[in-house]
């Protein structure tokens, strides 16, 4: 059995949820589980074809836009500070450090020689160390690059993943375990975004100790072409992985996996739902206040919420080019789309369009 099953994971209670739900502040959407400002930040495409990072209030008011040189993908908030980081889209040659209140750029940190970022990163809970998945592209090795924000984002460590194509990373509520989606796909910047190893992919969900870089557990999906890209974790330690299937479109494999109580299991939503997901999930988010999980598929133009305990799909809505998902205070989710829409989804209520903006939201909100 994987080592982690013997670890006692800290079970964080649904901290703060009672206070938030009792606040009665259900009319205006609020961000869940956050002591930071009430905003979501995302990479955006602008109508003139240029790119920026932008922040919106949960009600769809654009707070700021900060132009960037190339299209960005995702990023992370630095805990305890007013800094937000955004990574250039794969192959990402740099990340930006921005003032999350104003969009002012503090730094643009370039990838090390022979490496590129893949669009994601996460901070240690104290906001000091940044963990960024990286492709070391000549040998095609995936690594986690560690940067120290107290030292002007100097590179301080490198952890080997023993695999290819890492993508999203998040931090377990135990504060020690990094959760990494290892997509398994070999790419090289000389060859655009061509997938070079579809026959020999070895995707995995990897759990890693953030101090030593030791791999604590590695779970492989049920088919070698289920690229394990996106991950999230609930406050109780349940881990979710979302796949992008690299095989033919007429095959409809499971696209979501869950790890809890020592078991890694894949979840099927049934044939008709899978047809609407287009074998591609762009985001997966576990709500910190309840046992609901939301996913979005831009390929299928579908966002849905499922119950983590029963795996039953409880809400599903067609949103063209939807990709970004975030949790709202009170138990709902916010979904963003490449057509500028923000849509609120929740249990037992019709999906509501909150805003229609003249920007194209890229894959993720943070």
């Amino acid at each position, binding site marked *: 059995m994987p080592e982690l099953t013997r670890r006692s994971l800290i079970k964080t209670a649904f901290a703060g949820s009672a206070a938030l739900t009792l606040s009665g502040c259900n009319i205006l959407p609020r961000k869940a589980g956050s002591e930071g400002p009430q905003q979501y930040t995302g990479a955006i495409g602008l109508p003139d074809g240029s790119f920026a990072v932008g922040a919106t209030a949960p009600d769809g008011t654009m707070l700021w836009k900060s132009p960037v040189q190339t299209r960005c993908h995702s990023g992370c908030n630095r805990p305890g500070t007013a800094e937000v980081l955004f990574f250039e889209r794969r192959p990402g040659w740099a990340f930006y450090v921005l003032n999350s209140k104003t969009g002012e750029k503090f730094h643009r940190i370039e990838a090390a020689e022979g490496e590129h970022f893949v669009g994601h990163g996460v901070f240690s809970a104290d906001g000091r160390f940044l963990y960024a998945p990286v492709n070391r592209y000549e040998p095609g090795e995936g690594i986690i690059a560690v940067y120290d924000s107290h030292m002007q984002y100097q590179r301080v460590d490198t952890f080997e993943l023993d695999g290819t194509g890492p993508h999203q990373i998040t931090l377990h509520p135990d504060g020690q375990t990094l959760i990494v989606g290892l997509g398994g796909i070999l790419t090289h910047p000389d060859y655009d975004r061509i997938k070079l190893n579809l026959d020999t992919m070895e995707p995995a969900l990897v759990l890693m100790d953030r101090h030593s870089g030791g791999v604590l557990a590695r*779970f492989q999906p*049920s088919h070698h072409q289920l690229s394990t890209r996106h991950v999230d974790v609930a406050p109780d330690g349940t881990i979710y992985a979302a796949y992008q299937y690299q095989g033919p479109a007429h095959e*409809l494999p499971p696209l979501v996996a869950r790890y809890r109580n020592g078991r*890694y*299991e894949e979840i099927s939503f049934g044939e008709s739902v899978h047809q609407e997901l287009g074998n591609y999930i762009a985001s997966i988010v576990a709500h910190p206040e309840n046992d609901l999980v939301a996913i979005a598929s*831009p390929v299928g133009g579908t966002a849905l919420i499922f119950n983590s305990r029963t795996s039953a799909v409880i809400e599903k809505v067609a949103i063209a080019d939807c990709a970004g998902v975030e949790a709202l205070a009170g138990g709902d989710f916010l979904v963003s789309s490449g057509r500028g829409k923000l849509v609120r989804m929740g249990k037992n209520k019709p999906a509501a369009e909150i805003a229609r903006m003249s920007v194209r939201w890229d894959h993720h909100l943070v």
Partner: protein
Amino acid sequence: MKRLTLTLCLASTLTTAPLMAASTNSSHNPGTDYRRQWHSDILTGYQSLATQSQTLAKQAEAYCQAPSPEAFEQAKQAWLEAFLAWQKVRFVDFGPVEQDNRAWQFQFWPDPKNLVARKASYLLKDDAPITPEKISESGVAVQGFPMAEYLLYDQAFNNSERALPADHTCKLLAAVTRHIADNGETLAHDWKAFQNNYIGSDQYTDTTIRAAMAGLEILEERRLATPMGLRGNGKRSVYSADAWRSEASLIAADASVQGLNQHFLPAFSKLLKDRGQASLAENIDQQFNEVLANFPELDRPMAPLLADDKAFRSLQNLYIDVTQLTALVNDRAAVELGVVRGFNSSDGD
């Protein structure tokens, strides 16, 4: 019911993970009619690619066995015809062409780092034997039309001591064109075998429409707007076009539009009409004719048209016609049919 073989490699229990296939029972589903026609129309294109690629391999071999200026011209002509056959089906970006990156194998492009030239120089540097295995393991920049084009057309290379019919270069040309021919044959074969899955799975209707949309967008943005200096740094440069070495950028564009007209439009038109969009279908049909009316006049090298403002206007006319076609298909029809090629859905990350 089609199933993938499930290899369970989980250390822990795996539950509820059936792989399901899309519904195949659709006797009253008009979608199967469109897909039946698309399957057949695309097969025609793939078969032509297979045939022309075989001819290319044979001509290359014949030239290398008995080099002469005439045989060289024949080899170049065979390259062009096979390349144009590829252009006609280049929009198909799903199904068997996805396997082993076959589309990239046929045409690795764009190539901003000139990998094709670098790889050729690397392969020709030593006299290590050039085997099919060597081609297979050398990556997509070596395996297709751009590499054969480099060996046949590149001016600097043709003035070097490695120029055809140098023995080692001949061996490389023979191996590359054989690789293209084998891929052409396999692709046509695999497309045939794909028939039931394609016709039986509803999602391939949208997939096929999206493929045509992507093909038009690539034509408009990357094959025309970029070399015309309408994007990026604003400078006109034929090196941003595809097939600049053979001066076939525009005749290839012609072939791609013809390919969409022949292998995509018939079933698409029918689909639009069945969904109450007869006048839109008519407009799209007319706009295809508008684009194609630029040819064969414009089946010319692109570089001189970029160099001269007056000649540039004929390129602008083509570009405008293509833009209008793209708008009709990618915006109007796509919205009517609810088929979207989005910022995120075409990103793949």
